[in-house]
């Protein structure tokens, strides 16, 4: 096995990256802001209405009976416009991954509607859902377990094309594999290799190439960069951005890393125990977080600067996320909330639009 070395282009762009000027950054940022404003006018691609996913907890092997239920997702609503990237953030167990799986119909939701291009995915039968999955693809978190170790990279990438019969002819499929590998920054020679011969970052590029193979419109990135090394994360983030631009893709970006979400997303929804507690434009949410949980989350993100870290007041939210099997009554955050008043334990707060486009579920604010 000969190693595939970084190409000349990679070396050059590494050198260019060192010299990127502040002016060029400003121009690029303005371009980005413009495209973000355009997104606000685009038509809605995905609409989620009051989505609920409750899992039964059963006891007994032969005559099993339901003893409780886990309310993984408990009545959430949001929309994603065409070309938009919506960030879905929250801590483990808050239901963000379950939301993604419901949209892919890997789970059948307990209640609610999932409209994709006007079609309600909840009602679709297996056959029509399979056809629609061509338009909805997913990139998983772990590039080690999401690639079949016994398949060659070329086979992995061409499998969705065979399932959806987008490229019936083998030569066309192989050509498309080469094109996709190049598009995702990999040497086309990787097509004959196995996943174990690649590093984590390279495998994640394969995962992205596989998702793109059937020309989807909407991609769910479920913690797509969390398992990667810091130096590799930025490469994959840039790749996701380039692809979004090039193919007009729409992303649902599920993540727990708040600084990455701020960089990549147009709008952000914060989830806690199966509910959306805050939803706003990216700059608005990070600049002016209103929900106490969002404030706690943002306050807990460490900054790589010792002076700033030592100077800032540390307000650590107490306690841990309660079990979704037995969520607190009233507002689910009230046992940990610094602002909680008596009524928070009784009344479930509705998501209210406190500023234009900025929705918050808190009755104190």
């Amino acid at each position, binding site marked *: 096995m000969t190693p595939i070395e970084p190409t000349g282009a990679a070396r050059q762009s*590494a050198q260019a*990256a*060192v010299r990127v000027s502040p002016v060029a950054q400003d121009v690029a940022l303005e371009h980005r802001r413009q495209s973000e404003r355009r997104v606000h006018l685009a038509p809605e691609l995905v609409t989620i209405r009051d989505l609920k996913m409750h899992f039964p907890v059963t006891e007994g092997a032969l005559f099993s009976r339901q003893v409780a239920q886990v309310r993984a997702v408990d009545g959430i609503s949001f929309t994603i416009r065409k070309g938009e990237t919506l960030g879905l953030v929250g801590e483990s167990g808050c239901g963000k991954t379950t939301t993604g799986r419901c949209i892919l119909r890997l789970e059948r939701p307990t209640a609610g509607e999932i409209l994709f291009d006007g079609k309600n995915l909840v009602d679709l039968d297996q056959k029509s859902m399979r056809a629609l999955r061509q338009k909805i693809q997913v990139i998983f978190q772990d590039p080690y377990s999401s690639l079949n170790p016994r398949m060659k990279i070329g086979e992995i990438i061409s499998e969705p094309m065979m399932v959806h019969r987008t490229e019936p002819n083998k030569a066309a499929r192989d050509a498309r594999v080469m094109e996709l590998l190049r598009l995702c920054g990999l040497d086309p020679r990787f097509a004959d290799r196995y996943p174990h011969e690649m590093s984590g970052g390279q495998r994640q590029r394969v995962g992205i190439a596989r998702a793109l193979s059937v020309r989807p419109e909407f991609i769910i990135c479920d913690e797509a960069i969390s398992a990667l090394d810091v130096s590799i994360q930025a*490469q994959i983030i840039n790749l996701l951005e380039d692809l979004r631009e090039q193919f007009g893709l729409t992303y649902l970006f599920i993540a727990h890393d708040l600084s990455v979400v701020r960089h990549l997303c147009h709008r952000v929804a914060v989830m806690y125990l199966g509910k959306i507690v805050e939803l706003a434009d990216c700059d608005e949410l990070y600049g002016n977080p209103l929900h106490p949980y969002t404030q706690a989350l943002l306050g*807990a993100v*460490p*900054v*790589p600067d010792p002076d700033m870290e030592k100077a800032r007041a540390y307000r650590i939210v107490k306690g841990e996320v309660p079990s979704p099997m037995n969520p607190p009554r009233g507002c689910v955050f009230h046992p940990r909330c610094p602002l909680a008043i008596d009524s928070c334990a009784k009344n479930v707060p509705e998501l209210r639009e406190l500023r234009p486009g900025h929705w918050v579920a808190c009755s104190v604010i």
Partner: protein
Amino acid sequence: MEAGQVKRLKGICTVTDDERREVSRLLEIDRLQTYFFSAAGVVKAVDGISFDINQGETIAIVGESGCGKSVSALSILRLVADPPGRIIGGSIRFQNRDLLKLSDEEIREVRGKDIAMVFQEPMTSLNPVLTIGRQLTETMEQHRDMSHDQAVARAIELLGMVGISDPERRLRQYPHHFSGGMRQRVMIAMALCCEPKLIIADEPTTALDVTVQAQILELMKNLTRRMGVALIIITHNLGIVARYADRVNVMYAGKIIESAPAHDIYHRPRHPYTLALLRSVPRMDQPRRARLDPVQGQPPDLSRLGAGCSFQPRCGFAVARCASESPPLERVDGGDHLAACWEANTVARSLTRSS
């Protein structure tokens, strides 16, 4: 030869520093080499690293997966599985004893008692079939000649210290009754139970959520400061150690490539890799950028390293010399800042120009 140079430079540093620091030196690692001998070849996981820790000091070892940071930590306690791994060179002096020369019996006395460890994954490092109480008291009965009742009383006190409520009841529970953050608190209580001089925390918060991560780091910092325990935090995230570390060692491909007081690492990096790590992450404290500057290429294969600097294929500052000669870890900028780069001055100039 390069490690020898570091040694000499350190000698210079300590002369100018106050003498107290020399006296309170706790751990000195000198040219440590841990290799793995596999069928595919020799993997130089740790290749001649040297660093010191003083009493009560917190240092960080930062690097990406496979850079040798965990193997360095395991080597200190001689926990590297042999075969395939072996410590083939160097010395680890802890309170003036070379840990590498101790018998198996003697090193077991050191583990847990003088040097304790907190691992990344609290579920796999706690025994699922023993109660939390049994796991906490076992070490104390072993190392501190405590009676069972004394150990239980101390365990209750420790659980209270790490912020676990109702400790008497919790002692009788099993690890699966605890959440991830609570398990990590138990691990910290276990590490503290014999009042060690040094705690090595290997990615202590990687498996935890952000809000819990902040709780655990703050707890570790407060407890170690109060009890005067030195702390080595091993992490891949430069962000989390900014608040806690006095000194940061950055590792790449089995070597320390930069070592400096925390302020210098973040504000005046002298190695292109440290600079690239800092630049490649989006930061909450800075305005949004249009694009990130990633480190190009892939991390190197440790069994196939060339003669030159191992970061050279990915480095934007590389010159011809970098491909053939490996740079030694040398003092830059005067003071206590060490970097292993032929072009450290160019890195410094590029920083002053951009700011």
